[in-house]
C-alpha cells in the first residue's frame, strides 16, 4: 500500500515524505514502547514496514531508523515537534498524522490488507 493510500484511508496528513514516495507498505506494528518495536524486527525491519504510535518524540524516529522502518503514523491528532520532523527528514523516514485513535487506525489498515509484523527469533 502506498503512503498516499494510507493517507486517504486514515484521513491523514503527510508531514514528511519518504525518499521513495511509492514505497509499498506491507506490514505494520502499533506500539508506544520502543523496545517492543525493536523486538518485532522481522519482517518489521523490512523497508515495507510502518509504525503506528501515539508517541511523537525524537526517540520514535531513532527507533524507526534502528529497526529499518520506513514510515510512521502518529495517531490521536498528535503533532510532532519540529525537532522530530527534522530528524525524520535527515533519516528519510516518512511521517503521517491522523486524528484517528490507535485502535481505529489499526483496524482500517488491517481490514485493507496490511499485515501484522510477527515476532521472529533474532538470529
Amino acid at each position, binding site marked *: 500500500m502506498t503512503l498516499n493510500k494510507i493517507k486517504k484511508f486514515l484521513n491523514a496528513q503527510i508531514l514528511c515524505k519518504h525518499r521513495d514516495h511509492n514505497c509499498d507498505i506491507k506490514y505494520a506494528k502499533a506500539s508506544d514502547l520502543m523496545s517492543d518495536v525493536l523486538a518485532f524486527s522481522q519482517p518489521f525491519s523490512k523497508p515495507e514496514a510502518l509504525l503506528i504510535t501515539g508517541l511523537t*518524540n525524537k526517540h520514535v524516529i531513532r527507533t524507526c531508523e534502528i529497526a529499518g522502518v520506513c514510515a510512521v503514523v502518529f495517531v490521536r491528532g498528535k503533532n510532532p515537534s519540529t525537532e522530530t520532523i527534522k530528524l525524520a527528514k535527515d533519516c528519510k523516514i516518512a511521517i503521517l498524522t491522523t486524528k484517528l485513535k490507535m485502535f481505529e487506525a489499526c483496524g482500517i489498515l488491517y481490514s485493507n490488507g496490511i499485515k501484522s509484523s510477527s515476532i521472529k527469533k533474532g538470529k
Partner: protein
Amino acid sequence: MQSKTVFQQKYKIKGGDFVNAGESSCKIRNILKEIGIDADIVRRLAIVAYEAEMNVVLYAKHGIMYLFIYPDKILLKIEDKGQGIKNINLAMRPGYSTATEEIREMGFGAGMGLPNIKKNADVFKITSKVGKGTALEIIINLNGKNG
C-alpha cells in the same frame, strides 16, 4: 587465536542525555551499512547497540561503547559508570524494568532491552557491580556472509 581488527571506534555516552541518545548507534549502523555488511547483521547489531546505549542514558552516569570489526565477527563493548545492577537474572527477565513514569512516557521501560540484546547476539556477557557500573560484551558473527 584473535583475528586482526579491521576497524575500531569508540563512542562516549552521557547519562541523562536524551537529546543525543541513540546517535552513536545510528552512526554504527551507518558504518556497517557503508562497508557492505549483510543487512540482517546490520539490523541485529543496530538493535543491540541502541538498547545498550539507551540503558546507559537511562540508568548510568556515563559510559563508552567500543566497536571492533574483525574479518569474521563484530564485537561491541559497552562499559558504564553508575548505579550498576543488583540482580542480573531479574534484569534479564522480559518485562522487568525499574523505569520511572517519566521514562515510560518517553517510550522506554518495556523491560525488553536486555532480552532484545540477548536474542540478537551470538555471544552476550553482562557483568555489573552495584554502585560502580555495568559492562556488556556482545559478539555477532559474520559467518562469511560478507565475502
